[in-house]
């Protein structure tokens, strides 16, 4: 079954996502910080990474996404980014996801996450593999 790594510093959200994803038998591991997440990604080589945009700093998620896309091992692993960023920065993500230089992620989701929405995004990101 596909391995999913969640990088998010909010333990409650991680737990809720874990329950949703495990209900479809995905193998879920998680990490509470960007740097730890990068290490885990290198070690575990997941099939999908769910990444929160705001962790230690407002842009930590962006940095992690860029580092992941640079890494030899994880270059092709799809990233689903979680944002609550529209409310705090006014940035609209609709047109930005997929722009390799600006925001190198494959899809994004706004918090709060509806279980069905999360599962269908995960499925479609993994579907291509």
């Amino acid at each position: 079954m596909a391995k999913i790594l969640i990088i998010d510093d909010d333990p409650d959200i991680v737990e809720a996502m874990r329950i949703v994803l495990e209900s479809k038998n995905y193998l879920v591991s998680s990490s509470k910080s960007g740097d730890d997440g990068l290490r885990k990604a290198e070690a575990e080589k997941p099939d999908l990474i769910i990444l929160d945009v705001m962790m230690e700093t407002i842009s930590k998620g962006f940095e992690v996404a860029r580092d992941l896309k640079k890494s030899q091992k994880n270059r092709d692993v799809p990233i689903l980014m979680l944002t609550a960023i529209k409310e705090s920065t006014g940035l609209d993500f609709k047109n930005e996801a997929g722009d390799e230089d600006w925001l190198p992620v494959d899809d994004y989701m706004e918090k709060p996450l509806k279980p069905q929405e999360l599962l269908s995004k995960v499925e479609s990101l993994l579907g291509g593999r």
Partner: protein
Amino acid sequence: MENLAPQEGLIERIYWLIRLRWIAVAGVIFTVLSIEKIANIPLRSLTLYTIAFILGVYNLIFFLYLNRIKRNSPPDLPTIANRVANIQISLDLLSLTALIHFSGGIENPFIFYFIFHMIIASILLSRRASYLQATFATALFILMVSLEYFNFLEHHYLNGFVAYSLHANKIYILGISVAFISTLYLAVYMATSISVKLRQKEKILQEANLLLEEKDRIKSNYVLRVSHDIKEHLSAIQGCLDPVLQGLTGELNPGQKDLVRRSSERTGKLMSFVRALLEITRIKLSKEMETGPFSLRKTAENAVNFVEARAKDKDMRLSYNIDPAVDVITGAQIYIEETIANLLANSVKYTPKGGRVDMKIKDKGDSVLIQISDTGIGISKDDIPRIFDEFYRAKNAKALERDGTGLGLSIAKEVIERHKGKIWVESEEGKGSTFNIVLPK
């Protein structure tokens, strides 16, 4: 503080002076005509008309010049405006002296019209400049009187108005001079005392206003932080409730399911409220909106799509008509779409089943008019003035829909005003409402 120059509104005051000068030109012509024709006093009318003409010419030049600098608005605009005001008043004093000289000199009672110039100077200029203008007027007066007295300049006797020529009467000259010069200085003293005080007050008010804006900004920042924190927790709560509700943690009994559903719904409502609060606060704090050209037609159609399903659920007729001339305008597309969608959603929400919602967009040259009308519950007269206030909800709206943030229309207003547009509502309770937006292209 003494020489506090009036900068705010100086340009407007100079325009006022220009308007006054047109009246003065007409006044001179009218007065000369009536004195000659009605009072039968011989005057150098051609010379006087010529002076009136010159007055008109330089007034026109100042008017055109002012329009130009106002359009270009150079950084040193206040300095230029100040200089222009000084030059104008000096030229006016010269013209008035010439007019007086050619119509009787010291015998002419209109000599006291110099007072008006002193008052105008006190309103427009700093206190020091006003006293300088008074001194210039005094010098012109003394020069005219002495030149006429020593016959270096011809005296134009006002035959029929004064019994005999007064220009060489020492006592008369002395009396008029003392009265005239003291009047000039006293007028400046009094008028500047008032206007300097007014300017000080104006400055204090401006400072107070700035302080209020700063306080408001601090408050907004605070609201932004607090709501953001609240939203994070809400996200987590909702994220935890939803898997439970969907049975991902095991089947719930009906009672559990009902309570979890209620909790989830309430969290959702609180979330919408916090989102709206975040949005209006963020717009208020942003100095500038990112704007660019976009198709208003497409944007409006998107907004219609957004509410279509909801209108259908209520068996409503949702129609729209966009003037073919309306297309690309400049603005913040996302916000405009949201605003139109918001108004449409409001109309759908507050219109009973089977009602109508209609949107019209008309081309108005350099702006567009967006009208969204419905056959809904309307807004009472008492509520109309407050409907755009933050957190305010009309009584009948509250009765119909218990939940609502009271922020939708204040966000719309903020967005439209940021675009230098206007938004207002016309409504009759029980019959329906029309929301109007004027947006510059």
